[in-house]
């Protein structure tokens, strides 16, 4: 199978053995590893930039591949033993999406969801998570196709042909609530954060061609301004520009960063008529980034300019949070039930769906305590946009170490991101950003997509064969009504539009995958 980065296709044969010889075939842009009987086929793209990929023969029947420093658990390593055993140690920074499927005799893994689905014989819809996908529950959900999973940060996977798969979850993070982390002096933040940014710049940018995504917000404006202050090197920034009314405040902020950093700006204006999420989707996707269509031309342009590493502000909102309770992702039992009961859900969700949502409440927390905020880690694990263009996204805020350190700073310094704003002011960064009088809301673009009529055809196409309607979870007439009201701007809550979008995405995705409901 063709891949944008990494794929593994293993099919059991009775002669499978850990001592079967493996062969590495090398072309200008990828390695292909096969066993003599072709029951194993692995592809890894070559990458010279951060994180550099590698593939080498340990002995005649063992091959090791991955990216970054092989001895550092910050990076991914894959070990192949003959045509029988595949071992994967997932990286702690887990940026690349990795989907997989396994039964006793087959193992399929790829960073592309469509690749995994394309190699499953007769894919089945996983009915147990349909409800979760429609409502978007408070925890990361497995993909809606039976047997397909996401390999998450720090997980370890061993597949042995003929025996199946063993997965070891990541260990819990060493603290439960923010108060468990010993308090640190907030005045130390300046030095520690500076040292961290220095390390980040050295480890991610040294010898690379890189650029910075800036939105006009505080988080994404941190690293470019710090970098320019430190090095005096002109930079490249890239931005999505909102339409009215937010462009009025966003433009001056972007301009201020450009002036502060002597940047070359690459800007794409968001157009709801041509860039609506899901429009033009031809292969099944899971968790497609909301701004995928808008970002694609930007990323293509950056690739043409030779950019290989792209810094974002992803995770900034979450990393300064204050954890004093179970996170939504961990919630279970009575508390989760009460929260679900109090949720306002749209009328196109039938009583059957709402009841199923309540009875679906997990009795135990399913996840280990995450080392990064759940939103941050899972958001990254679903986004292939960058890597398809050969660009690796990095964010200083997507760091397990920084997350734990920030929890040690008293809550009132994290509230309103005060400590980060103080850092900006002390460094002399642009005031327009650290003390903004008005903020932009990118969600407005989503509403505009609906109002522009971008989903007229898709709504009718999906409703004509919707499996969730057949299951009795979705009321077709209410969908029509809700869509009409959203288009007319009569639904003022963002939730209804978002839930309608989730319904469209789910149906479109499994239709493209050719997935069926189980007969039993």
């Amino acid at each position, binding site marked *: 199978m063709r891949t944008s980065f990494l794929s593994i296709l293993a099919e059991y044969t009775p002669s499978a053995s850990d001592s079967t010889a493996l062969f590495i075939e090398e072309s200008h842009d990828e390695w292909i590893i096969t066993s003599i009987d072709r029951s194993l086929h692995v592809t890894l793209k070559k990458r010279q930039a951060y994180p550099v990929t590698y593939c080498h023969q340990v002995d005649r029947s063992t091959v090791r591949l991955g990216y970054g420093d092989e001895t550092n658990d910050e990076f991914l390593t894959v070990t192949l033993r003959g045509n029988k055993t595949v071992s994967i140690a997932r990286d702690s920074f887990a940026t690349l999406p990795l989907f997989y499927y396994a039964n006793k005799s087959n193992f399929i893994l790829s960073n592309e969801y469509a690749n995994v689905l394309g190699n499953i014989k007769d894919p089945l819809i996983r009915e147990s998570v349909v409800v979760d996908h429609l409502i978007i529950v408070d925890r990361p959900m497995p993909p809606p196709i039976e047997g397909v999973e996401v390999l998450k940060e720090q997980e370890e996977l061993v597949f042995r042909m003929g025996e199946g798969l063993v997965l070891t979850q990541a260990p819990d993070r060493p603290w439960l609530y923010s108060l468990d982390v010993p308090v640190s002096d907030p005045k130390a933040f300046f030095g520690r954060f500076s040292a961290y940014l220095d390390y980040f710049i050295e480890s991610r940018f040294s010898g690379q061609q890189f650029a910075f995504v800036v939105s006009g917000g505080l988080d994404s404006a941190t690293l470019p301004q710090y970098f320019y202050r430190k090095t005096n090197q002109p930079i490249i920034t890239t931005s999505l520009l909102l339409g009215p009314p937010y462009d009025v405040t966003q433009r001056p902020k972007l301009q201020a960063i450009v002036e502060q950093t002597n940047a070359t700006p690459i800007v794409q204006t968001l157009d709801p008529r041509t860039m609506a999420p899901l429009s033009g989707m031809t292969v099944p996707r899971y968790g497609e980034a909301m701004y995928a269509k808008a970002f694609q031309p930007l990323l293509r342009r950056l690739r043409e300019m030779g950019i290989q590493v792209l810094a974002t502000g992803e995770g900034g909102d*979450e990393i300064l949070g204050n954890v004093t309770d179970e996170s939504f992702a961990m919630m279970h039992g009575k508390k989760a039930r009460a929260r679900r009961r109090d949720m306002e859900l749209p009328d196109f969700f039938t009583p059957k769906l709402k009841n199923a949502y309540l009875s679906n409440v997990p009795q135990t927390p399913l996840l280990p305590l995450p080392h990064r905020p759940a939103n941050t880690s899972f958001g990254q694990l679903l986004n292939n946009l960058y890597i398809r263009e050969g660009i690796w996204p990095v964010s200083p805020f997507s*760091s397990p170490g920084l997350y734990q350190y920030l929890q040690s700073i008293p809550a009132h310094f994290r509230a309103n991101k005060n400590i980060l704003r103080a850092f900006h002011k002390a460094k002399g960064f642009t005031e327009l950003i650290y003390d903004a009088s008005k903020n932009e809301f990118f969600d407005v673009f989503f509403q505009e997509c609906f109002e522009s009529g971008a989903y007229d055809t898709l709504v009718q196409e999906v409703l004509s064969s919707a499996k969730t309607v057949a299951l009795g979870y979705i009321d077709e007439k209410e969908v029509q009504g809700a869509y009409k009201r959203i288009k007319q701007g009569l639904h003022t809550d963002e939730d209804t539009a978002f839930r309608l979008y989730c319904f469209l995405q789910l149906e479109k995705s499994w239709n493209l995958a050719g997935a069926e409901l189980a007969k039993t």
Partner: protein
Amino acid sequence: MSETIFSQSLGAAEIDTELREIEVFNDLVEAIDDIPSELKEELRAKSSGKFGSTADMEGDFAGRKTD
């Protein structure tokens, strides 16, 4: 984990600038800390707050806008 985030490395040429910046930063930290202890406690106990959410970002940054 090899992340080395807890050591500070100051370049000799930038030391004066950095000292001035630290002075400004420390004054700002004291300003942020200058709120009633009840409010600090309220924030400390606040459940699962995503304090950095965009809704909290508007207004005076010096830490008093915490309602």
